[in-house]
């Protein structure tokens, strides 16, 4: 059963299985295990970023294609939901229309970019995606009448997904309301998308992609059209990124250039893939979890540490909460140094 769900791609390492199991349980029971607005918000972000990073892993880790437009596809999905909900009014139909439109637009754009650039050499794809992503970000800022410009769009999701909607009293001290439903929509949506990606990379299509990544000429000489496979992977990856964006918009009930289109998110995705381990899918789970938790709690942790060492020379300054980004950087350098094949690669090698 589990093997079928995971498409036969088991974690292949006991510590990795334990870590993944722990993350799954924590995310599945997050509202009950860690009640609180911030913790549940962190859990939802982890779910969404797992999908976003896994979709990028399909491209980079399995296809060997470097793209800088993944945030753009993510943003298309987010804006799709926002625009649909703004114009169609709150409702699940708006969420569905927005998500599907976002995914289809992302796939169409990926197809055009892919056909123009992947035909020549994969590196041109990276350059073109960078240019297109920048252009789209500027366009979204400029088209303020449609997109809300720099302020973004705040919209209403269906009542059933809002905190005001109650469907019972309390369970283990947690209010049974729309926000809880919203979390589980994000959780199960992400879980399904992740399992779908796992199925894709373990299908014959995924194997051909891996073959192309390793030796594209050899794959062609066997009979596979490299451009077709690369373009298909790009479109699929873009669609899933857009769906992750839709989930993000549903969770936040807001979308803006900084939350869904910024280059910072793109860099975060790259770091998460590298930290977790490229070409493993499970690396996305580890990378996203570590990164999002560090992003959300490192500052607090350092504040506590700084308090503990108060009175000592230099240390309180070094551990000041304001310097959290510096330590985040140090953590990444160390993780890349000690886990060159990512956490998953390292754990699997230890077997």
């Amino acid at each position, binding site marked *: 059963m589990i093997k079928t769900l995971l498409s036969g791609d088991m974690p292949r390492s006991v510590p990795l299985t334990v870590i993944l199991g722990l993350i799954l349980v924590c995310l599945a029971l997050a509202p009950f295990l860690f009640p609180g607005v911030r913790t549940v918000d962190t859990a939802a972000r982890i779910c969404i970023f797992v999908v976003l990073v896994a979709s990028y892993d399909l491209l980079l880790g399995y296809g060997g294609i470097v793209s800088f437009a993944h945030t753009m596809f993510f943003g298309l999905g987010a804006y799709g939901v926002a625009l649909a909900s703004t114009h169609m009014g709150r409702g699940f139909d708006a969420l569905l229309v927005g998500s599907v439109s976002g995914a289809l637009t992302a796939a169409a754009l990926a197809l055009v970019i892919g056909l123009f650039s992947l035909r020549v050499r994969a590196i041109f794809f990276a350059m073109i995606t960078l240019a297109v992503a920048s252009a789209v970000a500027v366009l979204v800022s400029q088209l303020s009448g449609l997109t809300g410009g720099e302020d973004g769009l705040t919209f209403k999701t269906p009542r059933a997904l809002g905190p005001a909607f109650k469907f019972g009293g309390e369970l283990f001290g947690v209010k049974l309301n729309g926000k809880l439903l919203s979390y589980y929509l994000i959780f199960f949506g992400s879980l399904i998308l992740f399992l779908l990606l796992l199925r894709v990379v373990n299908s*014959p299509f995924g194997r051909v992609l*891996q*073959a192309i990544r390793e030796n594209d*000429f050899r794959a*062609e*000489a*066997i*009979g596979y059209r490299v451009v077709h496979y690369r373009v298909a992977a790009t479109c699929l990856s873009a669609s899933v990124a857009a769906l992750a964006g839709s989930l993000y918009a549903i969770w936040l009930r807001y979308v803006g250039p900084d939350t869904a289109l910024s280059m910072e998110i793109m860099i975060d995705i790259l770091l998460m893939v590298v930290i977790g381990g490229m070409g493993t899918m499970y690396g996305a789970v580890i990378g996203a979890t570590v990164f999002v938790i560090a992003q959300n709690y490192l500052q607090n942790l350092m504040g506590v540490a700084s308090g503990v060492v108060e009175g000592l020379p230099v240390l309180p300054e070094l551990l000041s909460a304001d310097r959290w980004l510096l330590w985040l950087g140090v953590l990444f350098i160390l993780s890349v140094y000690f886990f060159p094949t990512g956490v998953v690669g390292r754990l699997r090698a230890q077997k």
Partner: protein
Amino acid sequence: MSDPILKLEGVYTNIAQYHILQGVDLEVPRGAVTMLLGRNGVGKTTTLRTIIGHWRAHEGRILLDGEDITRLPTPAIARAGVGFVPEDMGIFADLTVEENMRLAAVSGPIDPARLDWVFSAFPPLKTFWKSEAGNLSGGQKQMLSIARAMIEERRLYLIDEPTKGLAPAIISTMARALRDLKDQGASILLVEQNFSVARALGDGANVMDDGRMVWSGEMKQLATDAELQERLMGLSMEAH
């Protein structure tokens, strides 16, 4: 004599500013092993890579069973029935032996009888069926590379130096497998520097020099004429 399975007519191939092939004419008969011989750097590998479409012929024609494949993309040539074993093996190291083989069976699921035959030729592939190809030894990687071409019946096999850098015991295994393939009636164009293998397998021989075909004839004639070998390739097969 029936029409050749492959025919090259005045093929010119340039790589960047270098004129590598300068009017190559070649005929590969059906059901025979045709050797492509010559010193290093005379254009043997480029000839194979031009046939498979990796390098484009700037002039001339390449006919597979009478059909012009000169301008076809590489995947189309492969699916037309040309199996290519490159010099660098080109195995997919991150995939298992099984996955490598399944990828190579482009026309559908692997025929179990054919797989048994491949296993009988290369027993280590059965042993390491579920192992990552990157963990195989050099000889086993070469076996996998050839096995991928053999896993389906091809109209033509292009094999580039299959015994290069291998231990004598592995070379014997390779030679046996290629002999087996030949006995099944396969058409093979083989680049081989190991003359004892070339002599044992080759029916016809073609010798290249400086991007041109300088001699074509029977392998046994070349194998027994030391003076001809010296003149064509600058060395004698007897030394090997």
